């Protein structure tokens, strides 16, 4: 099967591999619930440090096999804002993003887009996205996604609490005379 290094090419690859996949390979992304779940884990994976991904993958027995379909490659995303914060969009500026697509022996395809330029991190995130669509879902969810989600939430909470310590209550002074 020729591998096309283009976005649209992936559609073709995906389309042509769908019928050779076993049903157990792709059970979760078809339902709206499955989509929401995949959206969530992709967001978590995008913020997962490389060493955490390495650890989660190396803990798998047997070690997973995969093939690169595209990338990993670094490019940019144009970040948009809105006029006044909630009006028409405008182009704020670009950010570096690294993407990767991999295929598992069963034909399942994993994708990743992660901020920054870490090629290995993007590839491992794509691999995890692939594996999470297979029967390894429950295992990886418990071993990687949930703990990492908790860590990210705790980090955010910590930041918000440190900001909260700087919240002021201005008191209007009584005017003198």
């Amino acid at each position, binding site marked *: 099967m020729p591998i096309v290094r283009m976005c649209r090419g992936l559609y073709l690859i995906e389309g042509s591999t769908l019928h050779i996949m076993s049903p157990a390979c792709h059970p979760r992304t078809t339902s709206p619930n499955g989509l929401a779940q995949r*959206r969530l884990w992709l967001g978590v994976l995008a913020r997962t440090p490389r060493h955490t991904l390495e650890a989660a993958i190396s803990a798998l027995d047997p070690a997973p096999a995969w093939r690169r379909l595209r990338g990993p490659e670094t490019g940019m995303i144009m970040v*948009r804002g809105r006029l006044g914060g*909630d009006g*028409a969009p405008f182009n704020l500026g670009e950010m570096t*993003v690294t*993407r990767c697509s991999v295929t598992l022996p069963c034909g399942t395809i994993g994708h990743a*887009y992660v901020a920054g330029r870490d090629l290995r991190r993007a590839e491992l995130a794509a691999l995890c996205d692939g594996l999470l669509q297979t029967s390894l879902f429950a295992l990886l969810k418990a071993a990687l996604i949930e703990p990492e989600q908790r860590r990210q939430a705790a980090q955010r909470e910590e930041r918000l*609490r440190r900001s909260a310590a700087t919240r002021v209550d201005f008191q209007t002074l009584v005017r003198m005379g």
Partner: protein
Amino acid sequence: MYVAVKGGEAAIEASRALLADARRGDRTLPQIEVAQIEQQLGLAVDRVMGEASLYDRELAALAIKQAQGDLQEAAFLLRAFRTTLPRFGVSLPIETARMTIARRISATYKDLPGGQVLGPTFDYTHRLLDFGLLCNEEPPPTPVGDGPVDAEMPRATAALEAEGLLAREDDDGRPPPDLTREPLMFPAPRALRLQALARGDEGFLLAMGYSTQRGYGGTHPFAAEIRFGTVAVEIVPEELGFAIEVGDVAVTECQMVNQFKGSKTKPPQFTRGYGLVFGHAERRAMGMALVDRALQARELGEDIVAPAQDEEFVLSHVDNVEASGFVQHLKLPHYVDFQSELELIRALRAEAAGRAETSCKAAE
């Protein structure tokens, strides 16, 4: 016009070596790490990312190291690197109302939902040199609040909008113009102006904003809200067909509200100046908001009398990579050009001298 010249290779090579040596400084001192710049000169990193219009903290820090701390040169380096990367797509517009707030203040409302959160700011420092930093004193641990600040904070301008005293921004659903793909044309729509301002030179934005405060196109501004924090960036990859988060970026947002006396078609109300920039850069966001408001003169039917209201003037000079390039190109050899000027001046002088002599003789 400058012309190509040959030669000087050895001198150029030696100059580069000397530059690298100057960058290294005293070799008995440890070399500064890019990670140290990224962590400890974070505001310089923010400025470089903003003016290069590329969000990548590590690369901005590298550019600062390479440029010996010359931030405009660093922005130039990062802007040049940008051209080597393909663009994968555009993000969904970031949701600044759902920012993970590090700082949020309003100068127009004392009490507002979510409260005033000072965050890390120079505003309440004494601006006295801290000699403790000379001997690398470690700062004390930071206090932690009992609970987090609100996960979602309404804009300080929401109340004015609800009362109809400040126009809501429309969204006609059209994709915004892109300065990096199409040349700048006038009149420029507001979305294009904001893109140019967002990556504009901080000094220029500050000076232009300041000029409006001093009466050159006065806009009578209030800082309704300034917020700084991180927001998630979402994209919809073609191969997935649904939105995913790729990570977070830090941004500063400024909402200025300005007095507006009204026009033939519009009743008296407030108008908005908007600033949104990468990183923690309040001076820059405020300058942008002041200039954004001044540049709305045409749409609001105001007389265009000041530089800050003149979009051709502002947008043509706001980019420091362009400005620096054109000013600095004067250092390139202009020998032929100058030679012809020199000959011209000599000829004119000779002609003038000849005329004077003739008129002298005539007078005798």
